[in-house]
């Protein structure tokens, strides 16, 4: 016997179909989107506590559904001292972005940049070393295709501005920062591959300020993976990805890696 819509209720929380966004039917049970979120939460929490792999085909969620933004726990966070520079081995968990996805995403981001910045001649795309640099160049190339304006690019190496230099065991390699002589009055768009703790962006902003006083600073990232430790957010985001803290987002670009894709991996 088919029940009428208002009588369909989530078997877990009891909300009626009209009260929830999605109600999924199973064999004689129903579950609403809210309860699914809670289920994912439990699985993610369990994975965090036990270190067991997630066992979920990792959902790539849109911002509205991004449970991590709600799950974000208060973090008694200690930076573990990273010893040894041994090669790490990774288990590949899922492919977040293919080349085609990346192209689409970059096209969208560049049109957003054009939309938000009517005066493109005053815009400077600054890539954060290493992978932010080719991404900034690609965005500039896309904008040129679209608007036939050549947006200037630069590169920023934030090593000297890191806040964890006295805790990491060995000194990281310092690379060159390449910025035009004067950035005062410019609109700077920082470009990076992954937005994670926000500490890199903090360092990048500190470095920028040492070069001048930009009119405004915006942030474009290919992947936002959550887990912020500082109040920093991006203006242009390629994709939100739900992650656990153990997972690593590997953005692979032909400039540095053999392939072009974004992977979600976990250390072996």
């Amino acid at each position, binding site marked *: 016997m088919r029940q009428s819509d208002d009588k369909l209720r989530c078997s877990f929380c009891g909300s009626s179909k009209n009260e929830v966004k999605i109600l999924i039917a199973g064999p004689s049970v129903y579950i609403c989107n809210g309860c699914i979120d809670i289920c994912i939460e439990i699985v993610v929490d369990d994975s965090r506590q036990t*270190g067991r792999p997630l066992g979920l085909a990792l959902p790539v969620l849109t911002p509205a559904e991004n449970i991590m933004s709600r799950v974000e726990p208060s973090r008694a*966070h200690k930076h573990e001292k990273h010893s040894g520079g041994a090669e790490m081995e990774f288990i590949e968990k899922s492919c977040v972005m293919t080349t085609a996805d990346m192209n689409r995403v970059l096209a969208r981001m560049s049109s957003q940049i054009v939309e938000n910045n009517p005066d493109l001649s005053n815009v400077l795309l600054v890539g954060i070393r290493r992978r932010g640099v080719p991404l900034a160049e690609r965005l500039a190339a896309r904008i040129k295709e679209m608007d036939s304006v050549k947006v200037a690019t630069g590169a920023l190496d934030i090593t000297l501005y890191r806040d964890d230099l006295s805790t990491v065991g060995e000194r990281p390699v310092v690379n060159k920062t390449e910025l035009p002589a004067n950035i005062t009055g410019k609109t700077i768009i920082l470009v990076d591959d992954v937005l994670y703790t926000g500490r890199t962006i903090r360092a990048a902003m500190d470095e920028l300020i040492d070069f001048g006083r930009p009119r405004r600073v915006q942030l474009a990232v290919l992947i936002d993976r959550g887990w912020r430790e500082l109040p920093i957010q991006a203006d242009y985001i390629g994709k939100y990805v739900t992650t656990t*803290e153990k997972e690593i987002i590997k953005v692979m670009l032909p400039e540095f890696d053999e392939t072009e894709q974004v992977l979600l991996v976990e250390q072996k």
Partner: protein
Amino acid sequence: MVNGGKRFCPHSPLPTPYSLFVRMPLKRKDLLGIADLSPEEINFILDTAETFRDVNQRQIKKVPTLRGKTVINLFFEASTRTRTSFEIAAKRLSADAINVAASTSSVVKGETLVDTALNLQAMAPDAIVIRHSSSGAPHQIAKIVDAAVINAGDGAHEHPTQALLDALTIRGAKGRVAGLKVAIVGDVLHSRVARSNAHLLSKLGAHVALAGPRTLLPFGLEKRIAPAEGSVTFADNINEAIKDADVVMMLRIQLERQSGGFFPSLREYSIHYGLNRRRLELAKDDAIVLHPGPINRGVEIDSDVADGPFSLILNQVENGVAVRMAVLYLLAGGE
């Protein structure tokens, strides 16, 4: 609340993303000499110094990298260039630099080197830069203090940061070090700069020709140079050393270390071993002239050469700050 209401997050065993960067190969506490550095370590220091050279050209020549670190410059010998250079390097990295000159320290009251070092150690510096007239003094201090010890010249033994800045200058001008002919002319016997350079340049594949009055040449030095791609040889005379050289490095006569009698007079020395324009013509057309300073005009180098277009003597000083920033960053940066 699901799951007991407790959200537990074990802190990550993983490095933060930016520490996935390439690891540096410099794994040592101190910089005591070039002799024990590998060519990879040398190149790594030089590459790092290139970046700091950029920092020195910015409008705001300061980065927060060594904030809260203390660098003590302990100089038992006179110095303007090296001490100022180390002080500026430390300050541009936001470290606190303290200068101790032997003439104003407790050394004049009879304190031994080891006691001075132990007392400084008690004040927990992160790096001690030391210059001393006795070879091996920095090595002794390095053994008893936790801080990074940087040799800023010990007797006639080594002056590693000088050799590094010379190499940076050569690399900047020539694009490479390997395969170049480098003439080092003058008082090689008393020169720690010459020794450090002989080690460094031969490790990087250059061919070093040493020349000077025979009384001022440390014959046998070549046997102490580790076999490398480059070479270290003694030239029969200065002209042979300078002939076809890519780099001519002149050394000062270190009268303060000499008991006298090594050569008849400064005037005679200048005529036979000084670098003048005519002599420089023996070198390659695009040869560069270096001098670790301080220069004695009219003795080992004529003014028109020292101030001439081939002279990179002031570039050396500029590169000195960058090299010392790199060394301080690599040795005093962490923990």
